């Protein structure tokens, strides 16, 4: 086949052979057809009218995939349209060529194999999927895939899939508690369905197969053929993790990395397709299920009694399960009854959103910041020139007001709720409690609290470590809880709320609490604390943040290496937050993280040091004093200390710290001001500065890629005169000062 129509012929044949296979539940076949139609539409060898027809048909099938056109209606139209295309194709081709005989079985095979490698590949996979469904054994061999589609499409797919997965996970966890929530089931189902559809379209067969098997299992639950128990949820969650990994690796394709198939891929697919293997019972109270069924007329009284007596005799299954499995009644009825047994969960409203690249958002925020500065410069100039025109003054003030409103609004654009992060913790607690065999409820409060995106992204890790700690060290084993006369189920509360311009995130558990004595002993052992020294409770508790600090006798795979809390401290430091620990021995521990609302703005004290202005974060300033001569003492003529109300602090000159000892004009201490500052873990030092200009909120900017990190400087801020001032990194300064 070498004429100009051979390619089109092949495509058309492929489409015709697939057409009867299209079904609503399997969009990948439709996606296949769509792809071939698109190729037909782009085939310039064909007559223009034919191309147009192909494009129209492609659009139709696309709409069907997107569920914009009802399936039944769409499929009729589609087959009509495709048949028409085939007819007109044959007519026009036959007119032009009478020599070439096209419909030949052997050639058709060639059609399927050689030129459209991708297409064939997909067809094979489709076969595999259907085999998997019938025989429950999808055996996927990991192969390197080449992707030659639109990279932008792929990137979108990755982002969207992640969103779908993130959205589905909490619902799946909810489902564990209420396996009959049809809304949730449907939403999760749709998420996987969409992923599968698009994956099929992009030729990502592994993703397609996995999401397909997950979808199948969910579908069984949806149809009421099985009741999803916690084992099903387990395997679904595993599948989800696997899918996540796969998608991660799909992202790698964009940077030309080979597609890596997770190790447990095959195992998970297998598990997913054998749902009946773990129809193991789960206990929950189900008192009224029988009554509801009788009321509905779905079951007779004696059947219920039978089932209940079986349960009393020691059958560990739920009444509903007994009823279904002994084939007395339809599982759909049981599911329905269970649904009415549970109070209807409030529906989650979906706000309409638009996706915008963060970079563009930051540019907007930068520009608005500049506009505010420009506006205030106008105002300052007016004051300087003593312009007393009242209407002008009014107009300028008015524009200033609007500018600040816009600025506030622009800042709020970056705010996201902590919900998604909290929900990840729900999953973690569930997994950990299974692993450790402890029974733990996670209670979440204030998950709608909003924080800057970058802050939210960075609290994930600390939360994970703190929760691991709580579960492993904080919460006692079941026996211990019993002897301590505590409720059998432990409780971990995750809380977020606003307090005084910052956000507080708290983790509270009702476990055994911190033991002051043990901590202090360990701290002295490790040389973090000194013997004989008096420490407050806060100070003792803070020792847990020291690197390598662990009181755990056994290192488990959950925690105990003493790394976790160090990570927490680093992260919180990086976010310019602070940590407070409250604990009552035997009753529980509460760790509060105080975080800034945004990383972009800080409240700062503007100070003069020689000719430069610096900004010191107000949060870390304890007090400012004008030292008297006898407060300052020199130690070995190398360093100075200052004594404030009995406490001695190392005293450093900000000028010499920043400029070496080149600071020529060595001001006397009593001519300037000493600021006592404190870093996150409570280390203090005195900073000597010339004088204080005032307090101001500033937007933090990094110093540009070209200059990277400068020790002792947290960033730059653009001041109201348009100049740049540097923000002092108190943590590092204290480290530099105290060694």
């Amino acid at each position, binding site marked *: 086949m070498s004429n100009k129509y051979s390619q089109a012929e092949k495509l058309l044949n492929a489409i015709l052979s697939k057409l009867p296979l299209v079904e609503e539940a399997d969009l990948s076949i439709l996606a296949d057809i769509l792809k071939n139609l698109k190729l037909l539409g782009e085939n310039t060898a064909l007559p223009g009218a034919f191309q147009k027809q192909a494009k129209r048909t492609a659009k139709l099938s696309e709409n069907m995939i997107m569920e914009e056109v009802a399936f039944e209606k769409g499929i009729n139209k589609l087959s009509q349209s495709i048949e028409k295309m085939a007819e007109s194709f044959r007519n026009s081709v036959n007119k032009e060529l009478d020599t070439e005989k096209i419909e030949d079985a052997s050639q058709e095979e060639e059609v399927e194999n050689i030129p459209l490698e991708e297409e064939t590949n997909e067809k094979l996979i489709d076969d595999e999927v259907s085999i998997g469904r019938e025989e429950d054994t999808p055996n996927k061999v990991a192969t390197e895939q080449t992707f030659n589609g639109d990279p932008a499409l792929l990137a979108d797919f990755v982002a969207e899939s992640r969103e779908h997965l993130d959205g589905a996970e909490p619902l799946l966890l909810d489902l564990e508690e209420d396996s009959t929530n049809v809304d949730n089931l449907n939403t999760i189902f749709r998420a996987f369905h969409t992923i599968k559809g698009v994956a099929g379209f992009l030729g990502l067969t592994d993703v397609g197969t996995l999401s397909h098997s997950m979808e199948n299992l969910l579908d069984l639950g949806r149809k009421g053929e099985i009741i999803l128990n916690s084992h099903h949820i387990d395997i679904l969650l595993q599948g989800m993790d696997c899918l996540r990994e796969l998608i991660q690796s799909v992202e790698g394709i964009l940077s030309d990395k080979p597609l890596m198939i997770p190790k447990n891929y095959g195992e998970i697919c297998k598990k997913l397709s054998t749902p009946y293997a773990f129809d193991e019972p789960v206990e929950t109270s189900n008192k009224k299920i029988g009554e509801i069924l009788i009321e509905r007329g779905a079951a007779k009284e004696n059947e219920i009694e039978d089932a209940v007596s079986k349960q009393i005799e020691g059958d560990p299954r739920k009444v509903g399960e007994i009823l279904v499995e002994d084939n007395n009644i339809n599982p759909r009825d049981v599911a329905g009854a269970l649904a009415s047994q549970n109070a209807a969960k409030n529906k989650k409203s979906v706000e309409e959103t638009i996706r915008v690249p963060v970079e563009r958002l930051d540019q907007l925020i*930068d520009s608005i910041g500049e506009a505010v500065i420009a506006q205030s410069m106008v105002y300052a100039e007016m004051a300087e020139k003593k312009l007393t025109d009242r209407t002008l003054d009014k107009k300028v003030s008015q524009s200033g007001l609007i500018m600040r409103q816009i600025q506030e609004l622009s800042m709020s654009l970056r705010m996201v709720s902590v919900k998604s992060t909290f929900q990840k913790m729900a999953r973690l607690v569930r997994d950990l409690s299974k692993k450790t065999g402890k029974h733990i409820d996670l209670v979440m409060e204030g998950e709608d609290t909003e924080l800057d995106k970058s802050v939210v992204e960075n609290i994930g890790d600390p939360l994970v470590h703190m929760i691991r700690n709580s579960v492993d060290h904080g919460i006692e084993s079941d026996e211990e809880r019993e002897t301590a006369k505590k409720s059998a189920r432990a409780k971990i509360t995750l809380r977020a709320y606003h307090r005084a311009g910052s956000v507080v995130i708290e983790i509270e558990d009702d476990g055994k609490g911190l033991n002051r004595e043990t901590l202090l002993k360990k701290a002295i052992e490790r040389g973090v604390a000194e013997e004989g020294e008096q420490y407050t409770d806060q100070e003792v508790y803070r020792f847990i943040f020291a690197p390598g600090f662990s009181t755990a006798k056994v290192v488990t795979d959950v925690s105990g290496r003493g790394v976790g809390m160090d990570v927490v401290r680093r992260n919180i430091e990086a976010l310019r937050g602070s940590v407070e620990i409250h604990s009552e021995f035997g009753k529980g521990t509460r760790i509060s993280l105080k975080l800034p609302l945004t990383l972009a703005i800080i409240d700062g004290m503007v100070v003069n040091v020689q000719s430069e202005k610096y900004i010191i974060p107000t949060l870390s300033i304890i007090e400012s004093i004008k030292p008297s001569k006898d407060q300052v003492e020199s130690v070995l003529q190398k360093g100075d200390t200052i004594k404030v109300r009995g406490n001695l602090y190392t005293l450093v000159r900000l000028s010499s710290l920043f400029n070496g000892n080149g600071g020529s004009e060595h001001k006397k201490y009593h001519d300037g001001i000493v600021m006592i500052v404190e870093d996150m873990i409570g280390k203090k030092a005195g900073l000597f500065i010339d004088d204080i200009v005032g307090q101001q909120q500033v937007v933090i900017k990094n110093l*540009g890629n*070209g*200059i990277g*990190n*400068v020790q*002792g400087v947290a960033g730059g801020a*653009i001041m109201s005169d348009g100049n740049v001032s540097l923000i002092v990194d108190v943590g590092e300064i204290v480290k530099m000062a105290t060694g």
Partner: protein
Amino acid sequence: MTQAADVKNKITQHNEVGEKLAGKYLTFVLGEEEYGIEILKVQEIIQMQKVTKVPKAPEFVRGVINLRGKVIPVVELRNKFGMTRQEDTEKTCIIVVMIQVGETSITMGIIIDEVKEVLDIAAGNIEETPSFGASIETEFIMGIGKIGDNVKMLLDIDKVLSSAELSSISKIG
């Protein structure tokens, strides 16, 4: 190799450099000399403004400035080239350039004495950088443009600003 072939070889070589470098250049003055930067690297030219000093930065980094809401570092090109620093005049200005270091592009300012003009330099007017021996570093100079009697050194600004010294800024400690 015959002499003729040798000469021919030289000519083609020289043309290669010319072909590669021909194009538009922004020329500026630094001390007694004139330099050129590829126009595509130049983002804008701004007036001299107050530069905020950065602690412990190398000598050739004058500090940072505010470029419409972005903070960018500013490099003193005189220091970088080992010339003595001089007081800013009203002709002193900052050329904002976008340089490429590895995969990241960095916006930076360079302080120069005076901006001249944008010149279109043809391939025939560009010569390879002569070697001055080990005492003078020429790695920053891509080639030399001859315009009339004037000689303009064509700078490889990526190399000038991404050299080892600059990366040391981020490691100040």
